[in-house]
């Protein structure tokens, strides 16, 4: 609020300030208006009412009998009911919700006959996609931070093996497109790793984990550079002070340098992980049904690309905005009072 009033004071007349605020909203509405107008010109029919089923929908669930016989008993217990069917070779019981029963006692039942029909809420495509994107991003962020801290420490180390390995890693990752890296992770490394796993009798790793690996490795390279810059931005005298008290290199890093560096690198780190969330949209290419791929499937089914892609963009915005708000709060909390 303070900032706003400071901005307003920059203007000689307060009315001028509000005129420019008006200009902003005018341009915004012109932009949206012309977009809508253009869509009308191509006779696109907006059907926002078709959108909700891609978030949640009610699905019919049929309970069918597996044997033939006779309905022996229907026992209703509060909201649950048990239908017992007695056949030649024995009897079978089915648990169904109380209000959904479509048979009566002593009815004759053939295999495949419907015993009960009820409806259940299920997550739609977009929500499934959002959940995958969230899961991918969270896991990849955690690995990205781990890689970044280890990488950053190796990068400033004087040990040539660690240092050069890190430089090679950074250059390799930053020098090639993420799309290619994803393909390599899945089709090249994925094949090799899964074959090896199979040789030693382990199960296959799914595409999801190769997606996580490609994203964490990609983000890790950038986080490494951010961590390095953070460590180097803490003045050498801090290390000297810590070492002069008898702390070892790693104690000085752990207690003095890294805590200060972390606070400083929080803003660029947030930017990196916002990028990571958005980069996860490329993972559709290896058949991970994240938000973008889910949206494309939804478009194929509904033929309503405008609404669905806009909704997908809004969902990404929810994720990235939440993250950036969280980091801002963290920054305030970590600030030295």
């Amino acid at each position, binding site marked *: 609020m303070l900032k706003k009033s400071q901005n307003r004071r920059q203007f000689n007349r307060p009315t001028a300030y509000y005129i420019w605020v008006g200009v902003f909203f005018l341009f915004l509405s012109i932009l949206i208006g012309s977009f809508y107008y253009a869509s009308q010109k191509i006779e696109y029919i907006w059907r926002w009412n078709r959108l909700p089923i891609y978030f949640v929908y009610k699905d019919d669930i049929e309970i069918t009998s597996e044997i033939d016989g006779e309905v022996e008993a229907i026992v209703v217990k509060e909201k649950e009911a048990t239908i017992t069917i007695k056949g030649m070779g024995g009897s079978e019981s089915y648990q169904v919700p109380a209000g959904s029963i479509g048979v009566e006692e002593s009815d004759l039942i053939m295999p495949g006959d419907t015993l009960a029909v009820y409806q259940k809420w299920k997550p739609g495509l977009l929500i499934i996609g959002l959940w995958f994107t969230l899961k991918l991003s969270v896991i990849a962020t955690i690995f990205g931070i781990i890689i970044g801290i280890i990488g950053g420490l190796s990068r400033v180390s004087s040990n040539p093996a660690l240092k050069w390995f890190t430089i090679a890693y950074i250059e390799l990752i930053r020098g090639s497109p993420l799309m290619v890296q994803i393909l390599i992770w899945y089709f090249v490394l994925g094949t090799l790793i899964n074959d090896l796993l199979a040789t030693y009798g382990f199960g296959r790793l799914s595409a999801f984990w190769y997606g996580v690996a490609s994203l964490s490795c990609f983000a890790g390279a950038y986080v490494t550079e951010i961590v390095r810059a953070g460590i180097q931005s803490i003045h050498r*005298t801090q290390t000297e002070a810590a070492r*002069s*008290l008898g702390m070892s290199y790693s*104690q000085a890093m752990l207690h003095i340098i890294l805590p200060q560096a972390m606070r400083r690198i929080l803003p660029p780190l947030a930017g990196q992980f916002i990028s990571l969330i958005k980069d996860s949209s490329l993972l559709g290419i290896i058949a991970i049904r994240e938000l973008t791929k889910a949206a494309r499937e939804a478009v194929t089914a509904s033929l309503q690309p405008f609404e669905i892609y806009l909704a997908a963009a809004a969902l990404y915005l929810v994720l990235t905005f939440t993250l950036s708000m969280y980091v801002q709060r963290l920054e305030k909390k970590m600030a030295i*009072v």
Partner: protein
Amino acid sequence: MIDVRNIYKTFTQPHEVKALVDVSTKIEPGEVIVVCGPSGSGKSTYLRCLNRLETADSGQIIIDGIDVLDPKTNINQLRAEVGMVFQSFNLFPHKTVFNNIMLAQQVVRKRSKQKAQDKTMELLEKVGITDKSEVFPDNLSGGQQQRVAIARALAMDPKVMLFDEPTSALDPEMIGEVLDVMKTLAREGMTMVVVSHEMGFAREVADRVIFMDKGAVVEVGTPEHFFTHPTHERTKLFLSQIF
């Protein structure tokens, strides 16, 4: 206590500077030594060589029987015995005054929390900042920060204290409070090596004054001798410039 024999130190970056040339000093336990000299005379380098923040190129440094330059020496153990106070304080900005003093006691000396807290309180009292213990260093005046830095070094129960121009970054009215703490320490029998231009301090508490120029020790003597009958021309010139 501190026996320095013929140390040399040459910096190659950014250009070659002979910082120390054949420096030898012998400091007895409980002695207070003030090292002075014009800027670039190597006095800070000499001090930093004592706890191996800089590694001398050749020569020998023995502190309390431990060979500082021997690669097999556990340098962290040695540094815990040799407290150091810097010109720019170098407190840890992300920790409160209290935790600045606590940290190394727990991490390096492995003291229990209770013991470390007791020690910290005792030291805060000694340097006169008990009321600021929960404050972050950036909110303290320079004089207060330097006193916390002294307390932080003392928390390790060092056998020797090194002071690298402890009052040079301070406003004039704050120099006194820091020097008072140092005088108390000197009276308590702490072995101290102080790089400083505070001639009043040197006159009052120093046992000996070392004058350095161009990386070499030019003159060593009691303050009495140093201030009244300096023998070398260079010393006379220096004294005439600062008085």
